């Protein structure tokens, strides 16, 4: 998995609550049994003029020249709610989004971010609004520097906000760890649990 240490990038504000994973990538854009080839489907219903078309809707924030090379999204509550489709994270990542800053996240989406090297940052609505107002004045110059080890978002002016993140998730992101490999180290423990559990709950085991 890609490591996440520090990231400097342009931020775009989509300050709506409840941006769901169907919106992040509609079903019709998930056309292959693959984690790849999804970036064109990102926000498809908002990004293009017509469903299924690829004609850019110039009113959509990510299509505006001021927001070219956006790699950070600022959003409202419950970002990534709804369907568990990991395609939402894969599409964001392939498009170039490395971090999403929102007051809260859909919990499956949040896990999916961590497993794919995308940083979900929780800040208050007020802080996000303040940051969005500042970014919007000149997105290409008013960029953000996210320093994960020190858990800070620096504005290019020098101001910063601190954020919280679980130690386990931070560690996973900074080291780019693969959760399966980490867990497989604990295989003996898992097998011992199973041996004991077989005696207590034999009906669970179908062999």
């Amino acid at each position, binding site marked *: 998995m890609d490591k996440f240490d520090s990231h400097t990038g342009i931020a775009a504000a989509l300050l709506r609550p409840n941006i769901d994973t169907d919106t992040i990538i509609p*079903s019709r854009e*998930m056309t292959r049994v693959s984690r790849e080839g999804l970036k064109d489907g990102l926000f498809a219903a908002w990004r293009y003029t017509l469903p299924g078309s690829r004609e850019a809707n110039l009113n959509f924030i990510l299509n505006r020249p001021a927001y070219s090379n956006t790699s950070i999204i600022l959003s409202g509550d419950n970002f990534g709610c709804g369907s*568990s489709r*990991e395609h939402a994270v894969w599409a964001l990542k392939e498009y170039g989004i490395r971090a999403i800053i929102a007051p809260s996240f859909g919990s499956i989406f949040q*896990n999916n971010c961590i497993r794919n090297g995308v940083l979900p940052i929780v800040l208050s609505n007020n802080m996000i609004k303040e940051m969005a107002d500042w970014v919007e004045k000149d997105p290409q110059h008013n960029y953000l520097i996210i320093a994960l080890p020190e858990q800070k978002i620096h504005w290019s002016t020098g101001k910063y906000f601190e954020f919280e993140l679980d130690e*386990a998730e931070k560690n996973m992101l900074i080291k780019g760890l693969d959760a*399966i490999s980490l867990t*497989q180290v604990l295989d003996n423990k898992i097998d011992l*649990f199973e041996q004991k559990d077989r005696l207590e709950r034999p*009906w669970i085991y179908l062999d």
Partner: protein
Amino acid sequence: MLKTLFEKLWTLHEISIIGNGECLIFIDRMFLHERTGSIALKGLEDAARAIKSPQHVFCTMDHIVDTTLGRGDETLMPNGRDFIVATRKSAQRAGIRLFDIGDQNQGISHVVSAELGIALPGSTLICPDSHTCTLGGLGALAWGVGSTEAEHAMATNTLRVKKPKTMRVDFRGKLSQGVTAKDMILHLISQEGTGGGAGYAVEFSGQTVRELGIEARFTLCNMAVEFSAFTGLVAVDQSTLDYIQDRTFAPKGNELKQAINHWNTLHTDIGAEFDRTITIQCEEIKPTVTWGTSPQHAISIEDEIPDPKRETSSITANAMTRALTYMDLSPGMPMTSVKLDAAFIGSCTNARLSDLRAAAQYLQGKTVSPWVSAVCVPGSSQVKVAAEAEGLDKIFLAAGFEWRESGCSMCFYAGGETFGKQKRIISTTNRNFEGRQGPETRTHLASPLTVAASACKGYISAAED
């Protein structure tokens, strides 16, 4: 020590505390479908990782598969066939049980895993699908994950999980005539917001929940994810035990006796404390329907569409205004004045036998409004057969509904099935997001009874007679 149901289930499966807020949890059952499961199986193959307990992994075709009679591998969605074929091949190579197209046990994941006894009380079950929380209705600890997490579960029989807090939602009093589990959960979400359950495992309790059948409990737990909860749960009782008996993969004989002794302990101890408790008086719940593009945009059918100007938060007001524009509705309109184009009965929320019976009972001797297209898609092939044995299909057909094969169908647009652009649909499904049922579609969520009544009237309507 006094424990909540959730704490009992968690402790039973906790292998160790990894630290940093994570626990290693043993996963008893894994369920896959052709859209996200196919990718999880491919991920394991690509990494040359084996499935640790293939006998505990099951797969169905539900998301992309067509639901028209006489269906095969071809789908309305271009490339849908690729998902179906890839899933079939991967399932075969992995040696897992697949309920393929044409199999008598094919159906929607969360319907199938319950009716076959794959999900059991007290078991942990994951599926790369957000509505896996449905199975909490049996007292199972079941939740939705991404494809990568599903790979983790299959490769190790475990997941690394942060322990959620506990919430009890206590439903007190009596439900009024025509009010169902769907109305209960929509009412809860409308009162507390879609973020209300964030970070919690939610136990639904109270006399009203005890009196619900198991299928209604599935409906209640199904939309726990729309409440942002980690999962929903209902304690085990005699109804649960009766439901489990004789299911294909459920224990039999002595093992069943042993299991029942264990299952009888799966309830919250009297006096155990929850991090949060919400109490709902059921007399206050009316037949409920959504007007906007979030499940929290739900009101009584008797009410008028709310006015964003009355909202104090500008974020909420803006979201409401946007929703009204998308839905092409205005503040102050009575819900019952909203004219429909289509009606859909289906999905893991509301397409089990009891749901179809409730709708059919209303539809008996009535016909769907001439301007409404109506479709019924049973939750599983077993539900379809059972409904046909009771003659329910004939009632739906006589009323003017299409009667189809099982699958997720028009709950969303994955297989390409839709009523069409800007169509207004009353639907027994779980999400009214923008474009959820196809580009530019407008969804109103409601119970099967309300959908049947509204389909006949041609306008949003409660079942009054």
